[in-house]
């Protein structure tokens, strides 16, 4: 059975996202900002367009085909609006690729960097790493 999951993990030394122009409300200390996690073919299950952070739920299958449920935070609506997001940009059922920094403790949480749609459209929450 062909796994739908493809995880790529990039180690990026000296990542400076912590000092980027749009700090998360609680800072980034709980996430591994040195490592970018990329998961293809995730299915968005919920989007909460709210303060203090927008929250994006998605499901992804692991190597064994078990579905993992992730929740990643994004900036609040006022910041995402400045990056051309609307509350309907990302909807339940969408299949996308998610770039994020995962929680340091291994739990299924993270802080999103960007989302790429099947047609190539990109929604960035934070700048691409340099």
């Amino acid at each position, binding site marked *: 059975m062909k796994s739908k999951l493809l995880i790529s993990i990039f180690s990026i030394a000296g990542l400076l996202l912590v000092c980027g122009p749009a*700090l998360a409300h609680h*800072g980034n200390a*709980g996430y591994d900002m040195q490592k970018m996690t990329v998961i293809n073919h995730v299915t968005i299950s919920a989007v909460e367009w709210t*303060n203090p952070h927008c929250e994006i739920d998605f499901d992804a299958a692991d190597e064994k085909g078990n579905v993992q449920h992730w*929740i990643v935070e994004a900036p609040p609506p006022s910041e995402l609006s400045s990056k051309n997001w609307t509350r309907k940009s990302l909807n339940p059922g969408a299949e996308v690729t998610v770039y994020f920094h995962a*929680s340091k403790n291994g739990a299924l949480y993270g802080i999103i960097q960007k989302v790429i749609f099947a047609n190539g459209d990109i929604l960035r929450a934070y700048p691409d790493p340099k």
Partner: protein
Amino acid sequence: MGTKWILSAVVPLALLASLPGIYAQTNLSRGTSDPSPNATVPDLSGRWVGSPPSFSITDPGGKKTGTAADDTPYQPATLAKLRAEKPEAGPNATFDSDDPRIKYCDPIGLPRIFLVPNQFKFIQTPDFVYIIFEYGTTGLQIAMNRQHPADPDPTWWGDSIGRYEGDTLVVDTIGFNDKTWLDHVGRPHSDELHLIERFRRIDQNHLQLDVTFDDPKAYTKTWTGRKIFSTTDREFVEHSCSMSENEHFKHRMLDGILAPPKSK
């Protein structure tokens, strides 16, 4: 006949009496903060956006905060207080922050509200300048034609008075409580903080804020900071701090992120 005469005289007199007030409201150059009848008031219009985490000129990214490389003139007790805090940014950044604006939705206060990546705008009238903030969503008034009260009550935002000096709006604020942080990296202040903010448009799309922190109870000498703002054409998007929404985020995400790693 007598009554008709009085009525016919009262109405024109009332109109004449109201004219100076109308004139003062429509001619900004007649504001009492600028005695010269020909002087112009600087145009501070626009939607201005700042950036975190501090006003420090030598360390705007806040990475040196509280270290030996930090040139802020702390009183010893102030530095101890800073180092005991758990801010969201700086060398002591923690995810489980005790920052009062995060933990309690406390007012973010001055001048820290100018560090958030949200927009603000000025509304300039002769007697008051108002600043409307997307963050909050809140607003401040700056009295342009009076002095500070002799003994203002300590409040979150203090008492602000202002004047124009050429192309600069100078805002002078006292009467703070000591509950807010000056910036995102947690610099404290006392209730004797005397804050001076100078706003000057440096070009069509940029505004400069020069801040003077005069707080001898918390700092050994006056020190200064700076922030440059740029314009946006985006409309306001509400950013209100809600304890119920904070609790929701805490339960949905924060607790899980702060939990110890699961043993494999």
